[in-house]
């Protein structure tokens, strides 16, 4: 007969799996908007799918597409740098979820591949080690499969739409970034950094080639990160809130 503690753990694992499915399906739905925007920015369907398969980090993917849409292939280095800077937080997620995902080389590589905002957030919200592992893998795998399928659908739709601005897709890109940013604005420091970065990028736009103003705006984060201006007392790694 199972101990009550075992039953509680099994119950929590099932609940973690349900949360993983819910988060995964919700996230996958906006893969359609990524696919459509990527094609609108000049990528072909295959390039769009490679981003979702290999990069697999929503913020970074939207950044590549956004910078290329504004500056074309000439803004390539800025696009790569923006994506990498946005992907840096995944390194920190890796530190936290590494102990939860199981051992073995290939298992850890697979876990690293699907270490994103959503899988980290669901995993770290659970109590028992078993539920944390279930939450991580279910969320990561459901998002991965769903995101890649919906990316393909979006890319095929975008391919057949034609004129981007008539459909308001350029405005959709800004709205998508805002959706990724919104859950991160709960404290004063990130709000100040967001406003500062937006002002810097806007003011520099007439003076530099497209893509560079965004990169230079990242310096605002470094200044506030190092000095902890407007910050709360020192803490460990932040919870994985927010979207992909």
């Amino acid at each position, binding site marked *: 007969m199972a101990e009550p503690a075992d039953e509680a753990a099994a119950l929590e694992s099932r609940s973690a799996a349900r949360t993983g499915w819910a988060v995964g399906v919700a996230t996958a*739905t*906006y893969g*359609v*908007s990524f696919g459509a925007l990527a094609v609108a920015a000049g*990528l072909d369907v295959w*390039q769009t799918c*490679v*981003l979702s398969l*290999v990069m*697999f980090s929503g*913020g970074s993917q*939207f950044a*590549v597409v*956004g910078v290329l849409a504004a500056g074309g*292939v000439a803004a*390539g*280095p800025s*696009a*790569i740098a923006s*994506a*990498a800077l*946005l*992907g*840096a937080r*995944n390194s*920190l*997620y*890796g*530190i936290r979820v590494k102990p939860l995902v199981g051992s073995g080389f290939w298992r850890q590589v697979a876990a690293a591949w699907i*270490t994103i905002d959503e899988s980290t957030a669901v995993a770290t919200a659970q109590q028992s080690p078993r539920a944390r592992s279930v939450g991580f893998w279910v969320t990561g795998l459901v998002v991965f499969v769903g995101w890649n399928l919906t990316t393909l659908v979006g890319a095929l739709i975008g391919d057949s739409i034609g004129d981007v601005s*008539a*459909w*308001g897709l*350029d*405005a*959709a890109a800004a*709205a*998508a*970034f805002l*959706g990724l*940013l919104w859950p991160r604005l709960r404290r004063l420091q990130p709000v100040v*950094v*967001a*406003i500062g*970065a*937006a002002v810097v*990028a*806007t003011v520099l736009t*007439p003076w530099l080639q497209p893509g560079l*103003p965004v990169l230079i*705006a*990242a310096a*605002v984060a*470094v200044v506030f*990160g*190092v000095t902890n201006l407007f910050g709360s007392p*020192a*803490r460990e*790694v*932040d919870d994985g809130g927010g979207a992909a």
Partner: protein
Amino acid sequence: MTVWQIVLLASIACLALKLAGYLVPARVLARPTTARTADLLTVALLAALIAVQTLAAGTRIEIDARVPALAVAAILYALKAPFIVAVLAAALTAAGIRLLT
């Protein structure tokens, strides 16, 4: 650079950053300053991208249908609307304004 080179280099860089979290000793990356800066980098880049996507047209600043579209999205996020609803509403707002003007 070709689009393929950009796509592959950026993808490999992001994947390498994920793997680094599993390979680099935690004490190197988990310092509060590093963690805070990485979090704020995400915020700064997203905010800068929003500004550029909404206001820039090449190297010019242009106030057009994208501004009200972003405002509609902001209101919907404040009302806790789902991501896809806010994004679609923004696209429809911009498309509608362009159709009428």
